[in-house]
């Protein structure tokens, strides 16, 4: 396999893994929303309607043509078809031969919790269904555009093996995958479209339909600052039409300020309430399973703090980066968010001040400790800009806390304090 410049590629699988479950940096949307976007860009999709209640399911069924209907759970996770609901009902995507059957499936799925290999054992509550016309499938393909960190460009990935896990195809038969690197400055060129269309074996009218579809997909990817736009499967029907049977699109959160039309598509039901609250204050927070919370400035130091808590025999309860320009308000909010997690049995504040000044952190810690009923041990370690002022504020506050000097000292103190308290 070679890329568009003829250079051999040895690690195409690197590109298939940009499908994070629910990352704070990317914004994901549902299939029905992605298909609406597809339609705007002339990408053919089968007729379909979303529904959040049984009344809306009935309305959707009336709009759809007579015949078989596919009922699809709308959650931000893959593996829906093979998933199982918590009450034992199997399959988050069901083919119904009649409208009555579709209604039965809808009833079983709506407000039920679906567990797939991407949701984790807690699963996701299905609050929206998507009902689409069933298609006669002649062949299934895979098609995606991803933003690739190594080539610093968009990469088209396609395969004749669609409707299956593409990562498995990449592993077992990488020669079945075509990969074309698109220069950001030049955009997708006609010869590149042809390269993909020929590689997938399209001919005649389907060749032209596919070419238009790929151009539309790339244009949408580029215009909307997408990180991933994936169609799995892309199909040809018995009638010879080419269309997107599924749709998965994720966007660059950094660019969402340019896209108010996409911001309204955000589904807060798909996100951890603590992470939503944190994002309001521009804090980067990720809930984990342990009992020692950390509040750190800088992503690398926050990760290292989690690592060292683990090294000393503790378990981190979260990742929390208060960032560079954090205000007293942000730090207070960070503290409050940490303390809403009932698992938290101790808190480690680790600040090395660059942009972030230690006195600001110190004031935030003191204010937060006063505002909330702090009943767990708190270890604070400050170093950097205005560190003397920061330490003075902590000492004179009268708030009960354990001061630490080095990161190792801090980690040891919080792990010991939590063990002593339990």
């Amino acid at each position, binding site marked *: 396999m070679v890329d568009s410049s003829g250079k051999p590629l040895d690690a195409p699988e*690197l590109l298939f893994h940009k499908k994070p479950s629910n990352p704070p940096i990317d914004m994901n949307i549902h299939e029905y929303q992605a298909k609406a976007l597809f339609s705007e860009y002339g990408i053919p999709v089968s007729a379909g309607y979303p529904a959040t209640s049984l009344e809306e399911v009935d309305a959707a069924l009336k709009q759809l043509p007579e015949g078989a209907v596919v009922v699809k759970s709308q959650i931000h996770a893959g593996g829906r078809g093979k998933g199982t609901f918590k009450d034992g009902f199997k399959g988050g995507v069901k083919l119904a031969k009649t409208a009555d059957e579709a209604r039965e499936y809808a009833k079983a799925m709506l407000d039920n919790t679906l567990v797939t290999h991407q949701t984790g054992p807690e699963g996701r509550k299905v609050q929206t269904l998507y009902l689409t016309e069933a298609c006669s499938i002649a062949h299934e393909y895979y098609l995606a555009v991803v933003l690739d*960190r190594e080539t610093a*460009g968009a990469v088209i990935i396609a395969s004749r093996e669609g409707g299956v896990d593409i990562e498995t195809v990449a592993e077992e038969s990488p020669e079945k995958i075509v990969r074309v690197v698109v220069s*950001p400055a030049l955009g997708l060129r006609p010869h590149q479209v042809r390269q993909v269309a020929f590689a997938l074996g399209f001919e005649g009218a389907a060749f032209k339909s596919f070419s238009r579809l790929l151009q539309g997909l790339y244009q949408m990817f580029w215009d909307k600052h997408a990180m991933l736009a994936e169609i799995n499967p892309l199909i040809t029907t018995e009638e010879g039409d080419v269309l997107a049977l599924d749709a998965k699109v994720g966007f660059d959160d950094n660019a969402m300020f340019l896209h108010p039309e996409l911001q309204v598509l955000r589904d807060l039901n798909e996100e951890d309430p603590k992470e939503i609250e944190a994002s309001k204050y521009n804090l980067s927070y990720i809930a984990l399973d342990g009992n020692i919370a950390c509040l750190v400035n*800088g992503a*690398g130091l926050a990760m290292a703090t989690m690592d*060292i808590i683990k090294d000393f025999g503790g378990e981190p309860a979260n990742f929390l980066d208060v960032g560079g320009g954090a205000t007293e308000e942000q730090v207070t909010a960070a503290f409050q968010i940490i303390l809403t997690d009932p698992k938290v049995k101790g808190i480690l504040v680790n600040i090395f001040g660059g942009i972030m000044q230690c006195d600001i952190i110190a004031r935030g810690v003191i204010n937060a400790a006063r505002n909330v009923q702090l009943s767990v041990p708190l270890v604070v370690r400050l170093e950097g800009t205005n560190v003397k002022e920061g330490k003075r504020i902590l000492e004179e506050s009268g708030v009960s806390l354990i001061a630490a000097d080095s990161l190792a000292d801090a980690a040891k103190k919080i792990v010991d304090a939590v063990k002593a308290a339990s």
Partner: protein
Amino acid sequence: MSILVNKDTRVVVQGITGKAGAFHALQCLEYGTQIVAGVTPGKGGQTFEGKVPVFNTVVDAVKETGANVSVIFVPPGFAGDSILEAIDAAIPLVICITEGIPVRDMAEVKRRLDNKDCRTRLIGPNCPGIITPGECKIGIMPGYIHKPGRVGVVSRSGTLTYEAVWQLTERGHGQSTCIGIGGDPINGTSQLDAVRMFNEDPDTDAIIMIGEIGGNAEELAAAYVKEHVKKPVAGFIAGASAPPGRRMGHAGAIVSGGKGTAEAKIAAIEEAGISMAANPSDIADALLRIYKG
């Protein structure tokens, strides 16, 4: 005693009249850095802190002051264009501090940097900057933790770099130059670029490389070290405890599909004969186990 920047470096600050730009320009001036110009479109003709002339464009600033390094504190929506402006003004070294630049903008910038006619090196974005202790600080790092010396430090993380530098300084070891390359998935200078420059610098005797999960920059640098570097090198990788599939703050810090794990990076580092720090408090000691200064 350094790479890339020294006491003769002449710096232009893009975004000097903004809150972050003004604050850090002042801190750099106080450190002794030669800030010779600022750029804020529409504010040309003003003066920053009574001594630094402000220009409307980078080209004007370079023409009038001979600035040869630019540092960017422009908001994320405009920072990509600011980098391109500095490249067009043929500035040899551009340091972009801004966090949160759309990835698409950085893809465009990266292609521009890769053009054969482009002579600019970019450090960042989303980075703390670069410092040659005692001579020149360009960025947001606290100056006082550093000390002139012969250890080169390169890192994807800002505050974790300060941690390592502080450990070195406390143990009496100074730094030749410290570079923060930033936490974004698409950036200018890589771990490998920095390690190569330190390796070729006669005033650098030892190197510390601090990485984190995601991507393969550390693996590439480790392979280079194994092949070409005779100087003692120590390393640390943050994120061993991070769950896969979640981005840990930095846009580039994600383990996905089993790629970019701390385990793989640590294995590559150890395979290259680099001294691995057991935890973030052990970074300086990991170097001092193999380097006596």
